[in-house]
């Protein structure tokens, strides 16, 4: 199958960026994966969009002369409704990121541009756009429904990170096993200033495409808030306020968010109605993290989220999970439960985070037997390495 290159329009008023982009992306351009177009402001961008049919994606700066990126975002749907836009914002500029998301931006990256991050973001954005186009192309209602479910599932998969920090201080691993009916779990792991690491795990209340969209915006808002605020409680408060603004469908997302410092082992966290994570000690014993008096996000506006801290000692394992683990059922309708989860590690604390996740998934599957999996199963695991 021959693939025509994806057309990406880059909008930025810094003249150096064109040179830099062409240099950094040259392999992808040469191999026919991408074709790059450039514009220096919103007005030029609209001209390009009119000239060049089928631009797939716009990557736009926000502050530009003549027409800024936010105004451009509002204009794009008039020309090309299916286009996906990613904004480039100043670090922690939550106000503009929020406006951009409200105007339909798919994702954002921050300045200075990390080209590895940019590449991943472009891939994810284009993949997401493809899925939507496939679904939209279908006229048949039943087929479309099936496609939509596939789309929701693929959207969910496409936003999950697949590479994790691995250093002398810590090792992190996370994965999800989706249910056949699309669920709404997601997780995120990303770097913060000062060598800290943001950890998030969440579960959206509903299933299907609306839940997938709610999940996408939750994830983006969480990431946006996380880089703008230090305190986990403040981050959840901001995301909650944004999610409750327009939430007629009464969807909500249970979210555990933590800022982890691998150098000291300190984990500052806030729990928005999510299952309490587990700290597994080297002797196989484990303790549940106390709650922080939180509420699932999207339920009630204006509430404050408390926070707490725990110190991981060398060899300790922090396990975040979703209720797909503890509420997995066997043929008799009995739940897997917390005791069985703690028992997984009682005799043999795992040597690595990946092994820990595998052990949990294996125990859940063995318990459930032939009973079909009704919910996503997700684990995010952090190992504090021996000093």
């Amino acid at each position, binding site marked *: 199958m021959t693939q025509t290159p994806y057309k990406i329009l880059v909008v930025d008023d810094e003249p150096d960026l064109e040179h830099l982009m062409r240099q950094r992306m040259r392999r992808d351009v040469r191999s026919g994966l991408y074709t790059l177009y450039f514009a220096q402001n919103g007005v030029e961008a609209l001209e390009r969009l009119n000239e060049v049919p089928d631009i797939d994606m716009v990557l736009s700066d926000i502050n530009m002369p003549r027409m800024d990126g936010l105004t451009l975002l509002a204009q794009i749907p008039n020309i090309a409704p299916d286009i996906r836009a990613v904004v480039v914002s100043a670090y922690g500029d939550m106000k503009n990121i929020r406006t951009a998301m409200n105007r339909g931006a798919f994702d954002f990256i921050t300045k200075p541009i990390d080209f590895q991050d940019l590449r991943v973001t472009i891939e994810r954005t284009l993949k997401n756009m493809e899925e939507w186009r496939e679904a939209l192309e279908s006229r048949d209602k039943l087929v479309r429904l099936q496609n939509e479910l596939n789309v929701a599932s693929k959207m969910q998969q496409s936003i999950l990170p697949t590479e994790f920090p691995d250093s002398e201080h810590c090792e992190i691993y996370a994965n999800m096993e989706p249910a056949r009916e699309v669920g709404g779990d997601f997780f995120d792991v990303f770097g913060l200033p000062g060598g800290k690491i943001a950890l998030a795990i969440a579960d959206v209340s*509903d*299933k299907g495409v609306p839940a997938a969209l709610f999940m996408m915006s939750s994830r983006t808002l969480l990431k946006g808030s996380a880089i703008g605020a230090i305190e986990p409680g403040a981050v959840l408060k901001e995301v909650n306020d944004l999610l409750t603004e327009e939430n007629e469908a009464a969807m909500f997302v249970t979210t555990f968010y933590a800022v982890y410092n691998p150098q000291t082992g300190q984990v500052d966290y806030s729990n928005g109605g999510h299952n309490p994570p587990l700290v597994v000690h080297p002797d196989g014993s484990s303790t549940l993290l106390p*709650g922080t008096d939180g*509420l699932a996000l999207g339920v009630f506006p204006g509430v404050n989220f408390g926070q707490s801290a725990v110190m991981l000692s060398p060899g300790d394992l922090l396990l975040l999970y979703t209720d797909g683990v503890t509420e997995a059922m066997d043929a008799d309708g009995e739940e897997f439960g917390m005791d069985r989860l703690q028992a997984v590690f009682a005799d043999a604390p795992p040597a690595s985070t990946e092994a820990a996740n595998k052990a949990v998934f294996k125990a859940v599957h063995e318990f459930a037997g032939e009973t079909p999996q009704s919910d996503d199963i997700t684990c995010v695991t952090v190992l504090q390495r021996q000093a």
Partner: protein
Amino acid sequence: MEISVDRANEVLIAKVEGRIDGANAREFEDALNGAIGEDDSKVLLDFSTLSYISSAGLRVILLIARLLQKRNAAFALCSLSDPIREVFEISGFDKIISIHDSQAEAVDKIGR
């Protein structure tokens, strides 16, 4: 999932039996909307025979709570088993929805 409806002291009492999960959450929502009349200003869900509720079920509870709040109607839950109470506690829903130990206590609180 079965819902049986009763009234006491002007309180509509809907007793839910079985489990509520993603597969029947819509059915649950429709059944509750059907059971709650326009004039009902006090609604109690009796969960004594509810065996399981997933987050999709919680969402229906939230929808009903909002609907009733809009028309200034009282809304409460009662007789939650320990695992179900835990679901409400973990999600924080116990902070926004009043939960009572028994049907009698709940009717006493919200009825007249």
